[in-house]
């Protein structure tokens, strides 16, 4: 198991994460112990990489992150210390992205059901059982191919995959950030990953990683 990737606490333990702070309920003012600046600084890299994949342009990503942080600063009294600050920041950025890129976000973006385990089925077809086709090919896929495959996903699927797979948010946290039911998160992840596998396979073929 990849500890960095799967270092989230067990599912039962996240129940206590009070995401209520992200709701409309009035929250108590930030206590002096909570260092707002330091907490933002810790999360700027995460906000930026997310913004970059969503906008696909460094300048727009910088602008989005800057505005997100400014809004967080203005509304910091609404954040409840002890709750998930990173999730709170991502909710602000997600809403900002949607309002700025409304047209792109609202354009039709449903994904057709593709073959389940697409990449696996295609890679597994021609190899000897003793080989590990997945490890071989996946190891050869570079940053550029993975980046393109992610950016090719429609925004609603992309943001879901980014929040769970890159940032490690739970389904519940992701649902709260996106303002959708957990079931929607699951189906978008499912379809999003199918498409991702399809694209990774195509890019692997283009770059000669597979024949």
């Amino acid at each position, binding site marked *: *198991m*990849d500890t*960095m*990737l*799967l270092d*989230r606490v*067990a*599912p*039962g333990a996240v129940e206590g994460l009070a995401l209520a702070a992200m709701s409309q309920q009035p929250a108590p003012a930030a206590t002096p112990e909570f260092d*707002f*600046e330091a907490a*933002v*600084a810790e999360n*700027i*890299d995460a*906000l*930026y*990489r*997310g913004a*970059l*994949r969503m906008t696909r342009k460094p300048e727009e990503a*910088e602008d989005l*992150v*800057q505005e997100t*942080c*400014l809004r967080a*600063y203005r509304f910091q009294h609404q954040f409840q210390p002890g709750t998930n600050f990173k999730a709170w920041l991502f909710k602000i950025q997600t809403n900002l992205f949607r309002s700025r890129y409304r047209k792109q976000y609202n354009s039709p973006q449903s994904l057709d059901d593709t073959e*389940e*385990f697409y*990449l*696996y089925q295609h890679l597994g077809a021609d190899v000897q059982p003793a080989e590990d086709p*997945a*490890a071989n090919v*996946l190891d050869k*896929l*570079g*940053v550029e191919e*993975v*980046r393109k495959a*992610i950016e090719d996903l429609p925004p609603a699927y992309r943001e879901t*995959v*980014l929040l*769970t*797979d*890159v940032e*490690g948010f*739970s*389904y519940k946290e992701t649902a709260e950030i996106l303002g959708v039911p957990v079931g929607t998160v*699951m189906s978008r*992840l*499912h379809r999003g*990953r199918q498409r*991702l*596998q399809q694209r*990774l396979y195509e890019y692997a073929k283009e770059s000669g990683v597979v024949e």
Partner: protein
Amino acid sequence: MTDKGCSSCDQTMERLHSYVDRELNDFEMAEVRKHLDDCPPCEQHFEFNLQVKRLVHTKGCPEKAPRALVEKILANFRQA
């Protein structure tokens, strides 16, 4: 998947995303784990899906925020 019609395989495949994401309860996690231990084809599917998730995690967003952006944001706070 390869064992067509095996209800245990079907059930495991249905739960595979949730298992990879550690979103099942303890009982379900143990159930899936037990099946994977006994079923090499399903275990391979699991490993593969975990590797794809890991690939997205490690290579999907390697960028860091430019130093100037971090400084600008923190300077904004101090001026506000």
